[in-house]
């Protein structure tokens, strides 16, 4: 019966299809341009080191860094693994804890009043300043690092999810009330899905922050031995003036950061692409 309306949907679908061609062109550019830029920078770097005869303890050539990455892989790889473990463990606990606490906060005014000031205090205090204290109280350095990374990653998840839960469409809340939905039904069928985009934004921030905090805390801890992460290897390379290795460690850290950002962005895109505005490509 709704010929008029339905025909309206067809041009909409066609509209989506048309830009796809130019979009894939744009996508190729999006990959190629940064790659060309990277090649140019590395080339410039290699040329500069060679042309001005820069000693390797000041600025090693890209080739030397690559060589160090390969040769020192047993050490650096192990360190990377340690850092990754701390980062992801902290992130996982932050995600679960952040969501659970956010749900509690919006259920009860009392809990919110009692807890939120302390959440803010935790957030605004620089993690390097609390790290020494945590190192004293924690049973092991690993646990201390985990706690540090968790504190930092936790807050964006909590605050984003809380905001998402609070901004549920009130008409939809009315609708649920009208049909006699239980609080649990309202939570799982309405509030949590509505908060998902906010939560995912929090996840993207938390992923990067967890890595940063894991590294910063390790700097503060300055631990040594078998359980050392990338931060310790960085410091160690600096003491020993092993600058190629320092660069290699830095490179790994950067790559990890980018990978985490990419992965969280991808997860976010995949979860929202069917329905959320942020995941819709628009020409204008």
């Amino acid at each position: 019966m709704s010929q008029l309306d339905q025909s309206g949907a067809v041009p909409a679908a066609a509209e989506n299809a048309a830009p796809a061609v130019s979009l894939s062109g744009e996508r190729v550019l999006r990959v190629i341009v940064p790659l060309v830029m990277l090649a140019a920078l590395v080339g410039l770097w290699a040329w500069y080191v060679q042309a001005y005869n820069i000693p390797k303890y000041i600025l090693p050539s890209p080739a030397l860094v690559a060589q160090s990455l390969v040769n020192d892989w047993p050490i650096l790889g192990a360190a990377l693994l340690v850092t990754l473990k701390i980062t992801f463990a902290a992130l996982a606990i932050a995600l679960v804890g952040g969501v659970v606490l956010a749900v509690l906060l919006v259920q009860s005014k009392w809990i919110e009043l009692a807890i939120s000031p302390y959440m803010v205090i935790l957030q605004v205090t620089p993690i390097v300043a609390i790290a020494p204290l945590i190192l004293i109280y924690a049973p092991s350095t690993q646990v201390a690092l985990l706690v540090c990374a968790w504190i930092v990653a936790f807050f964006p998840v909590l605050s984003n999810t809380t905001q998402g839960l609070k901004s549920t469409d009130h008409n939809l809340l009315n609708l649920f009330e009208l049909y006699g939905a239980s609080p649990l039904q309202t939570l799982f069928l309405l509030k949590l899905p509505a908060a998902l985009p906010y939560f995912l934004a929090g996840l993207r921030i938390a992923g990067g922050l967890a890595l940063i905090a894991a590294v910063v805390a390790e700097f503060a801890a300055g631990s040594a031995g078998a359980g050392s992460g990338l931060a310790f290897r960085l410091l160690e390379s600096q003491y020993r003036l092993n600058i190629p290795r320092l660069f290699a460690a830095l490179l790994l850290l950067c790559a990890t950061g980018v990978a985490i950002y990419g992965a969280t962005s991808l997860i976010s895109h995949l979860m929202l692409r069917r329905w959320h505005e942020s995941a819709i490509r628009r020409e204008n």
Partner: protein
Amino acid sequence: MSSAVSMNAVAPSGKPIVRLEHVSKTFSNGTIALKDMSLTIGEGEFVSLLGPSGCGKSTALRIMAGLGDASTGRVEWPTMPHDASGKPEREIGFVFQEPTLMPWATVYKNVWLPLRLHGVSKAAARERVMSALEMVGLDKFADSYPRELSGGMKMRVSIARALVTRPRVLLMDEPFAALDEITRQKLNDDLLRLWEQFGWTVVFVTHSVFESVYLSSRIVVMAARPGRVIDEMEVDAPHPRGVAFRTSLEYGEFCRRASQSLLSAIGANDHL
């Protein structure tokens, strides 16, 4: 200017299905949204609540639906079965001004929602969901997401969701106000056709004189500050109505009377 408004109460046709008795509503910020509103709606009626914005139309509708209580006065659903707690178990469908769909759920899942909340599984709900979607002409769009639909289609989904529980009463709060004229007319026609076919009771909030005359069997005119009923008129034109009615002198005459009534409703507030 203030004109004396003559109040022509019109008796409802059919057995009373919902009765507002001296309902007043004062919000916590002191706004008197409704003052002493009494209204009886009969089974099978199509009643429009017509009035300027802010006159308490939505508030009245929400109180009927049980979304928020009246400050004083009573709402009765005399023919509705009561549930265990003594509350009338209302067979009501509610349509908001916005489509109010869950953007993360497909059309099917949106329409399934009222049944799902009562424990009906996705498969068991299939027949009812699809027949509700068929009624609004969207059965082919069951797997679409709301954002893939036009404004009119979203509104149709919203109506299908209200119909899926097979309610006896449909409460609609300016459902088509945000749509363009052509889509709106189409939806009006479809709604009217469904109403003629199924014989629901419809309470339809609108601020459009033309819409209220075209659709209703009775128009209840409200004025603001405080929100109250100031006039009622019967639109005793036969159904089915269509272009013939919309272009008739009779229609024009009804519109003229409703407009006058609405004007005096607005005139009752000097500042407008």
